[in-house]
């Protein structure tokens, strides 16, 4: 999903049948060409208070001028621009300018979309981003094409906003994590409602539940009670179980995705299901073994890496000889 680059190629083509030379519209056009949008605005507002208001081109130009004003309340001016294009279309009884006006409308409305993107990625204002996105969709349907299919764009936007909520989870205190995760799930479910086979949405939901499962265990106060520990284990189990269908769907959609395998490995580990945990751990190890071995070559005293290699050769890619070798290396490192 990207910002839609709007390249203004607008040239107001005042038709030959009209003479705007001495008119308000003509003056506004001259100011517009000179990029003096403030003066252009004054002139064009005078035009719509004169008989020139019955000309579609006057309203088109008004829309263009208001859209170009870069100071003050941009949203307010954008709304005036849209109103002007709508009136331009209405006055254009022959439909001569319909295609052109629709293009103006599209190019103006896309600014709401781009605002939504900027608000989401740069400002982190998710609510305003969604408001802007909703305006974009609603107005596009109302003013340009009621049958326009937003499905793909909605999927892209909701996935993006869901992912942004998830990113934010990592930087907030524990109490706020759940709220953000709830929002991430909400947006991912919106995507799934549109396309149940969307990889990102399924994966993101799986990851949220996986992390909730982990948190239920890791956030238990050290000096806890037995009852609390049992309760949190149950909550953790419930979260891991919720993650599984989404992660398995993601796995079907991208069979070689190592992040999915890692998440499934974590869930089955947390669920104390050794058979399936080892299945995914093996996939993970097959992928990472080369890296562990390379690391051992360059950093032979990396004790954690040696432990990983020992675990790999003992548990998943079983090789007794190699395991014994790394056991000895580990012993030597631990007992210098």
């Amino acid at each position, binding site marked *: 999903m990207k910002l839609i680059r709007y390249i203004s190629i607008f040239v107001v083509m005042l038709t030959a049948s009209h003479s705007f030379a001495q008119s308000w519209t003509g003056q506004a056009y001259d100011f517009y060409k000179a990029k003096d949008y403030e003066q252009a605005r004054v002139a064009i507002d005078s035009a719509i208070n004169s008989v020139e208001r019955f000309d579609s081109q006057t309203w088109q130009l008004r829309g263009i001028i208001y859209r170009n004003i870069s100071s003050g309340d941009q949203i307010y001016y954008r709304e005036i621009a849209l109103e002007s294009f709508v009136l331009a279309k209405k006055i254009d009884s022959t439909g001569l300018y319909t295609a052109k006006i629709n293009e103006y409308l599209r190019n103006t409305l896309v600014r709401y979309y781009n605002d939504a*993107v900027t608000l989401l990625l740069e400002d982190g204002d998710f609510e305003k981003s969604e408001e802007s996105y909703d305006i974009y969709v609603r107005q596009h349907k109302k003013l340009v094409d009621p049958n326009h299919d937003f499905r793909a764009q909605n999927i892209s*936007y909701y996935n*993006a906003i869901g992912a942004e909520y998830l990113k934010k989870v990592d930087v907030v205190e524990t109490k706020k994590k759940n709220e953000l995760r709830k929002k991430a799930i909400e947006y991912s479910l919106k995507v799934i409602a549109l396309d149940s086979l969307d990889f990102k949405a399924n994966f993101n939901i799986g990851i949220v539940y996986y*992390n909730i*499962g982990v948190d239920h265990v890791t956030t*238990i106060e050290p000096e806890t009670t037995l009852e609390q520990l049992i309760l949190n*284990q149950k909550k953790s*189990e419930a979260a891991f179980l919720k993650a599984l269908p989404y992660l398995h769907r993601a796995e079907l959609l991208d069979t070689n995705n190592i992040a999915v395998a890692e998440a499934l490995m974590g869930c089955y*580990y947390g669920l104390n299901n050794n058979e399936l945990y080892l299945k995914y751990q093996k996939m993970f190890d097959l992928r990472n073994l080369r890296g562990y071995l390379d690391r051992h070559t360059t950093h032979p005293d990396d004790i954690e890496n040696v432990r990983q290699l020992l675990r790999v050769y003992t548990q998943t890619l079983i090789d007794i000889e190699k395991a014994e070798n790394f056991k000895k290396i580990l012993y030597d490192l631990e007992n210098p």
Partner: protein
Amino acid sequence: MGLRSNAPSPSQMTDTRSVVRALYIYTFATLVEWPQGKRSGEFVIGVFGETSGVYTELNKKYSGKSIGSQKIVVKNYKSTKEINEAHILYVSPENSNYLKTIVQTTIKENTLLVSEAQSGLSRGSVINFIVEGNQQKYEINKTSAKKHKLVIAEKLSNLAANVVK
């Protein structure tokens, strides 16, 4: 400028099992009564044969904390010869073959012997971790507890998955 929606990676896999085991071991410490001779000095929690996982969790969470007036010390034993004076001894699954050898020492030292092994209780453990459904639970051998001169709180027995009397 693109709207990136990169799927986040799962957090590096957390050793949730060791976290749970360490928490259980701490709760055992609060729900078992040791003989008078073990109620002063340091409160030693030993881990036999594992330098990561449970030992790491116990060390991180409980070193320096207290059980009553006794300061917790977490020790890692790498051989049976090193095992002594622990209040609690957790024997990791890969070292469960040593259980029968260790039992006599732990009886003498009034050590709460905790294992995670097939038939752990019949091999002399007082408490044995098991998996029931998808959860880690524990079972207790009250006869072994008596041999070790340990008093198990009713709550600990009531919440156990299995109690051998």
